């Protein structure tokens, strides 16, 4: 299991691309992994024949475990001689830092993850620290969506709104018996998830009644991570939102004029390019937005590492444009395009989803007027870009048609007060509306 980043202790083999006996070239994709940071295809470190696979699909092992053996070309697999790697699928991973500062969440507010109501802005002091070290991983994805039980158990489960899948069955083949489910209910476990569950799960775990025709699918590693990170963020930060309306007319003009130039230079000039440039410039001036809370300390980041939320088929990922503050609009455009493309192709380096200081997410892609994204911990703010469209607007007592859009700033009121956030946003608005064409 390759070390996919210093903070990664283990990885789950999602899929073996090669089978025992297949020949592989160096750097040919060998297997697919899922860590708590990233999903990636792992290339073969050497050419030869895949002699043995030691870790089955779905199993989680610590980094540096031997997951497979590659022999010289022409060699025949001899499974018995392969040293067996101890399976350590259930060792909970402990966060590296004493204060969770290394919890660089991969996931953030997505178009679909908008939150209905902003958190009350006053609940600040009680939990000043970022999440304490905690079990991040309980890779017990059930391999079957069906849980063995009995008519009686199903009836009891329905009555008590218990998810049978949460219960360890003592019967033959793991069948959940009456005794098991009654014990489970008595233990109060149905109200509070078992301790093996990630601590970041919601406390009130309301079981789901499964109606006729409902299908049950185990969460992917990525989905679990997103769930954990989202809940963790909601619990950690005092979320507040400000929404600004921005006139993109000028940006629109510049974009039309420069689009072809950019294309020739191998880059796409998008609204995101302009927004990212303005955000980077504003973050440089508004240090509080480009910061993190570390225990009782505030860390003001010098670097501006811009996270860009990318929707994937069954989830999302937030790759980071490192040192975004040192890039011009062209550089930012290229970098954003590059990481987004590679995120979709699962070709990201784990380090590329790590270390963001601010995140941009774009619910407007799908037509949302504005979103209320959840902060990507341990950052303190996130920008949600609403759809950009032509609207009728009042300009100096006249009604005109302009290219408009809303921008939302989700921010952590523990650190960022409303005035600070709104000054930042006013600056962003100004930056976009008065975008300097020479910057493109």
């Amino acid at each position: 299991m390759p070390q996919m980043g210093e903070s990664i202790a283990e990885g789950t083999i999602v899929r073996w691309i090669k089978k025992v006996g297949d020949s592989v070239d160096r750097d040919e994709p060998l297997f697919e992994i899922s860590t708590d940071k990233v999903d990636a295809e792992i290339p073969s470190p050497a050419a030869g024949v895949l002699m043995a696979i030691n870790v089955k699909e779905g199993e989680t092992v610590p980094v540096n475990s031997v997951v497979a053996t590659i022999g010289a070309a022409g060699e025949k697999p001899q499974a018995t001689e392969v040293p067996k790697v101890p399976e350590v699928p259930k060792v909970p991973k402990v966060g590296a830092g004493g204060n969770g500062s290394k919890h660089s969440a991969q996931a953030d507010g997505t178009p679909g993850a908008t939150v209905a109501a902003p958190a009350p802005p006053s609940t600040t002091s009680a939990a000043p620290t970022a999440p304490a070290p905690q079990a991040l991983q309980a890779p017990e994805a059930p391999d079957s969506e069906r849980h063995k039980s009995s008519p009686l158990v199903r009836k009891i489960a329905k009555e008590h709104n218990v998810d049978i899948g949460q219960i360890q069955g003592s019967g033959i083949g793991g069948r959940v018996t009456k005794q098991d489910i009654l014990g489970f209910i008595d233990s109060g476990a149905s109200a509070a998830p078992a301790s093996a569950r990630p601590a970041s799960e919601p406390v009130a775990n309301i079981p789901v009644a499964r109606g006729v025709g409902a299908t049950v699918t185990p969460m992917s590693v990525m989905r679990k991570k997103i769930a954990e990170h989202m809940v963790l963020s909601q619990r950690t930060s005092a979320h507040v939102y400000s929404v600004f309306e921005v006139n993109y007319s000028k940006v629109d003009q510049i974009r039309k004029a420069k689009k072809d130039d950019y294309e020739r230079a191998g880059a796409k000039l998008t609204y995101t390019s302009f927004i990212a440039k303005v955000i980077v410039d504003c973050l440089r001036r508004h240090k509080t937005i480009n910061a993190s809370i570390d225990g009782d300390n505030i860390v003001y980041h010098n670097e501006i590492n811009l996270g860009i939320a990318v929707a994937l088929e069954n989830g999302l990922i937030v790759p980071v444009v490192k040192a975004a503050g040192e890039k011009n609009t062209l550089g930012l455009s290229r970098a954003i395009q590059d990481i987004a493309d590679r995120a979709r192709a699962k070709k990201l380096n784990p380090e590329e989803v790590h270390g963001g200081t601010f995140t941009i997410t774009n619910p407007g892609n799908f037509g949302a007027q504005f979103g209320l994204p959840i902060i990507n911990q341990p950052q303190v703010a996130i920008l949600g870009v609403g759809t950009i469209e032509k609207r009728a607007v009042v300009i100096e007592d006249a009604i005109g048609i302009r290219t408009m859009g809303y921008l939302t700033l989700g921010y952590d009121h523990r650190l960022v007060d409303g005035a600070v956030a709104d000054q930042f946003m006013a600056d962003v608005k100004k930056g976009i509306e008065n975008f300097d064409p020479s910057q493109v």
Partner: protein
Amino acid sequence: MANEYDVVVIGAGTGGYVAAIRAAQLGLKVAVVEKQKALGGTCLIWGCIPTKALLEHAHALKVAQSAKEWGLTGIDGAAVSIDMPAVHARKDKIVSGLTGGIEMLFKKNKIEWIKGTARLTGGLSLEVTLNDGGKQTVSATKEIIVATGSSPRSVPGIDVDRKKIIFSDEAIHLPSVPKSIAIMGSGAVGVEFASIFKSYGSEVTVIELLPRLVPGEDEAVSTELERAFKKRGIKVMTGSKVTSAKAGGKGVDIEVAGADGKSQKLSYDLLLVATGRGPVTEGLGAEKLGLKMDRGYVVVDQLFRTNVPGISAIGDVITMGGPHYQLAHVSSMEGIILAERIAGHAVQPINYDHVPRCTYTEPEIGSVGLTEAQAKAQGHEVRVGSFPFRALARARMAGETDGFVKIVAEKKYDEILGVHIIGPRATELVAEAVMALRMEVTVEELIKTIHAHPTMSEAVGEASHAAHGAAIHI
């Protein structure tokens, strides 16, 4: 070492021989020490098999006696009677066929039968006093299984001479049908012999200390059996105690203290003592070895371990604190589970609430789980459904319309807690109920289970309907 085995089983009853076969199937080298001339123990030699053989004869007799009703010609029903030597010959042939079958299974599974009496000598060693003289030391490397079983027990003050005052051991091979017989105790053994001897033509009196027959069964079953017995002319004295019994030349004189407190003197040809069975551990050396015992029974845990490492016990000889039945099928299952445990399989304790209880009277009784009274005592909100066999087509064809199926369920989750069947094929019908309990089936599921027509099993489906309101055919 010649006399070293993985597992040594003491006793070849339904617990011991099944444990031996299962252990051998799982690759263990097994020896069984058994002193009897045949394998199979109480069940095959004195219990289940011979008594049920006698019952089949009783059934044949009954059909022949009612030849006219069945439209059989050439038979004078009134003149038909039983020929005991012929009955015993057929019964003994069945028994020897079955015990011989176990011998064959032993050979097939390479199980050594050491013919003699075993004594625990410490560790995993035994000293066997061989039937044909001499002693032999036998040892186990993995486990010794004590499966020495039980034997009939009397009660204080009643001495069994095995001639006029007898146990079931003697009752199975009486040379002739007694003119009259009193039976002490109305558990399965007592009522089964009552049913047999009545069929054979004896005057039968059942004397039960408790207020009802088959006191372990649901009260409705007891009432129905008493009704059926009385209809057949069996005299039932419940709440009555035999205070003395004296065997004389002609028969037995007993004194019975009745439910009304009055004592009466009665005389019978024979007195059958069917008051229960006790453990057989004599000569085993259990106490000397420090085996924990309780009133003669070997104390074991849920997976049949005694307090002495390497020694386990199963069957009639054990007690485990909770409920435990002295039944062949319980012993067999214990043997299987123990053998698998010894072979290193993951095993689970038996749920003794799911043990079927079969009583081969006429009408038969088959039951599993809680009685209505037990269910109520355990705090369940109980609902009950009953269906009588007289409303069932198949039962009418058989001319056996006594009895019913009664389902005891609880309202909260619709769980089936017990099924109590008295009537034709009850001992077969109970199998469905055992499965239902084990699989934790609700009454609703049982209702939706299709029962073939015309069968006796329809009564089970109908009773489940009744538990939810109303049966279809009544």
